[in-house]
Structures are given as structure tokens and as C-alpha cells.
């Protein structure tokens, strides 16, 4: 018990003192995961909305697969991206393996299905409610989809946040394609894993506290925004 308390105390000092090593790790984590969220969102929103609104053969199958992909194991994604980017792989010549870019790619692949599937569900529900009215007014499929996405933008924030939560919290993918190289590809989760196995609990705990706080704060902010929007727009 004492070691834990000591470690917590040291962790508090590291965080309060803005320990440079800790700051560097947190900054890289945010850079990688936020980039992945931006990229995945840009692809997943149109994709999810299109699947919700369009009618095509095999739509049911696509939805089932998309939903299943939400549970994609990070290590498997890591392995696939590793194979793609490794020297012998098809994209090996780009020399991206063990760089932050490789980590962004892996996390984008990991969270794209999450954001797309949640978007599809939200747009689908809204489409059921709006479709007759929008078609009556003469909106085409594309323009109707855009209208829907804009109208439920605050609900879609939840989908994007789910993606961010997943990206920020996963270890497997970034560990495999990033390599946890000190000062280059070490992020919060990989650092926690490493420091814990080394027995350096203060740094691991400090990072853990920051990670949890970050995710909590973001969700609280999103919740507040959604509530405010609900009151404003109904």
C-alpha cells in the first residue's frame, strides 16, 4: 500500500512540475490520436451517412460487417499495418514503420469503423424521421444526406468522441507499428506499459491519471455542448 501511495505522490509531483519527459509523451499522444480522429472522421462521416441513406444490394451485409469491425482488436490492426509498412511490405519503400505517421495510420484504421458505424446508426434513425419530408421538398439523396448530418451534428460528436477514446486508450496498434521508441514514438499507453514492467510506477501512474482526466474532460465538454444544443435547437 505504501509503495502505491509513494508512487501516487511522485506522480503528482511529475504532473504538477510539468516534467519535460512527461509533457513530451502526452503531446505526442495527443498529436497522434487527434490526427487519427480528424482523418477517420473525414472518411467515416460521409461513408456512414452514405450507407444509411443509399439503397444497394448487400446493404445489410455491409452494416453487419461495419458493426463487427467496431470490435477490431488493436493488435491485429497493428500487425496488418506492420506488414504493409515493413521493409518487405507493399508500402515498405516509404520508410514509415516506427514513425508517428505509421501510428496515425494504424489508429485511423482502428477507429474508422467505430465512427462510421455510429454515424450510420444515427443518420439511419434521423432518415426514418425526415425522409418523407425531405423527399417531399424535392431533396435528392446527396443533399438529403448532407442535411441530415448537419441536423444531427451534435449527436455525431458522440461518435467522434468514441473514436477518440478508443484511439487514445489503445496500446496494441501503436506498440507494434510505433515501436515505443523513447522520444520518437513513445505515447502515454506504451509508456505506461513499459514503465510498469520496469517498476517505475510514478511515471506510469502519472500518465495514467492524465490519460483518464483527459478522456473525462473531453467527454464532459461534449456532454455540456450537446445539452446546450438540445436546449437551443430541441
Amino acid at each position, binding site marked *: 500500500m505504501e509503495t502505491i501511495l509513494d508512487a501516487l505522490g511522485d506522480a503528482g509531483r511529475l504532473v504538477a512540475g510539468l516534467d519535460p519527459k512527461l509533457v513530451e509523451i502526452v503531446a505526442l499522444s495527443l498529436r497522434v490520436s487527434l490526427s487519427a480522429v480528424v482523418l477517420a472522421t473525414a472518411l467515416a462521416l460521409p461513408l456512414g451517412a452514405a450507407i444509411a441513406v443509399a439503397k444497394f444490394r448487400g446493404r445489410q451485409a455491409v452494416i453487419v460487417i461495419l458493426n463487427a469491425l467496431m470490435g477490431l482488436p488493436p493488435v491485429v490492426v497493428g500487425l496488418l499495418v506492420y506488414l504493409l509498412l515493413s521493409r518487405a511490405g507493399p508500402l515498405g519503400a516509404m520508410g514509415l514503420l516506427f514513425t508517428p505517421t505509421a501510428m496515425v495510420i494504424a489508429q485511423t484504421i482502428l477507429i474508422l469503423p467505430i465512427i462510421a458505424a455510429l454515424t450510420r446508426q444515427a443518420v439511419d434513425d434521423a432518415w426514418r424521421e*425526415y425522409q*418523407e*419530408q425531405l*423527399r*417531399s*421538398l*424535392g*431533396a435528392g439523396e446527396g443533399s438529403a444526406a448532407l442535411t441530415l448530418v448537419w*441536423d444531427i451534428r451534435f449527436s455525431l460528436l458522440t461518435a467522434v468522441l468514441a473514436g477518440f477514446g478508443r484511439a487514445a486508450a489503445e496500446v496494441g496498434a501503436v506498440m507494434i507499428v510505433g515501436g515505443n521508441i523513447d522520444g520518437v514514438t513513445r505515447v502515454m499507453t506504451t509508456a505506461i506499459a513499459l514503465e510498469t514492467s520496469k517498476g517505475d510506477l510514478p511515471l506510469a501512474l502519472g500518465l495514467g491519471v492524465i490519460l483518464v482526466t483527459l478522456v473525462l474532460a473531453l467527454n464532459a465538454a461534449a456532454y455540456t455542448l450537446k445539452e446546450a444544443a438540445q436546449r437551443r435547437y430541441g
Partner: protein
Amino acid sequence: MRAPTSILPLRLDEVSFAAGGRTIVDRVSLVLEAGPRTIILGPNGAGKSVLMRLCHGLLAPTSGRIEWAAAERPGERRRQAMVFQRPVMLRRSAIANVEYALGLAGVAGRERERQAEAALESVGLAHLADRSARVLSGGEQQRLALARAWALRPEVLFLDEPTASLDPGASAEVERIIEAIRAAGTKIVMCTHNLGQARRLGDEILFLHQGRVVERAPAARFFTLPATAEAGAFIQGELPWT
């Protein structure tokens, strides 16, 4: 380019609609002309709403043909509009909802704003223009839906039980607006199961029963001398209609 001929009359030729193995509209043939307000009456499940959605193009008939005098082309401004039982409003201000519809109809810029303001004015909602549409009361939302439809200057306006979920005061207001829209030259096609409303607003009655048009008559004659047993029973309140 195109001569501004009317889209009316609308011709239905042996139109049927089936879903889930059940025939909801059964071989309906009729012609809707410009002018008289047509009220579609009938008990619940008679196929009133489905018939109206077929006419408006929201549903495709299983068999039969639906033809407007001037065919509608995709991407072109619609010359008909519909108001639903439950209005669907976008999460934006009242006036933005009207402007959205005008935008789809190809009206842009200052003109769009002007027409939207005029439409709100005509349904008595000008003072709520900047209020979020979804927080308006049911009656106000239905008036907004009427303003949105009216702003499009449709030649035909379909109304699907527009007052079914409104209190008497709000219903009266909606009826007043419908009358104003008719007076401005729009053909009204409305379905209701409210006999009083049908009497007040109808010039002719289309009586639907089990997916068939059982009787079509001028309103005055329909209510005093119904020609069919079904219509008679319906007027007497012997058929379930609530």
C-alpha cells in the same frame, strides 16, 4: 423554356399498392382537377394516407399509372407540396426551415429571405421567426409546416390529417390557413377522418373504404344523400373512424 401549363389534372389509372402481402390501395382510378377542394374521407386503414403518398410521389404504385398533366422531372422545382400529420422540422430557426425549402426550390439570396418572411407573416408566425423550430408548440409547428409548403407556391397541396394531433384552437387556425392557401389559387387535397372538418373545408368528397374509392360526390350531396351503404354508415358513425 417550358410553357407554364398546369400540372393538373392528375390521373390515376388502376393504381394499386401492396405491402407485406396486404393490398392497401386497390385498383383506384380517378382524375383530380384544378379547383374544388377534394377531401379524402374514410375509416382508419382505408388507405387515405397511402393514396395521398402515391399521388405525391413518395410511394411508387405496385401496379397502375399515375400521371400529371405536366410530368415532373427530377432535379426540377416541385410544383406540389405536402403537409404531414406530424410536422418534421429541422434543428434550426423557424425562418431557416422555410428558407431551406425555398433553397431546394432554387430560390436564392435576398429573394429567399423575403419570401420566407412573407410566408411566416401569412401564417402569423413572423414574431417567432428566429425561434428554434423544434421548440415551438405543436400548433405552431403545424402552421410553420403550412408556411413552408405555401412558400413554394405549389399548384397542389396535399394535407395528411393536418389537425389530427392539435387542440380545437390550433385546428381552427390551421383550417383558416388552408382556406387562405386555396383562395390564393392552390388545389387542396386533404385527408381527414373528422367529419366536421370535411364539411367545413370540402367541395367534393372522395370516400375510401378498404383501399377502394367507394363514392365520390359533391360535399353537400355526400353528407345529405350518401349513395352507398358504407358511406352512410360512416356518416352515421357506425364505422370505426377514430
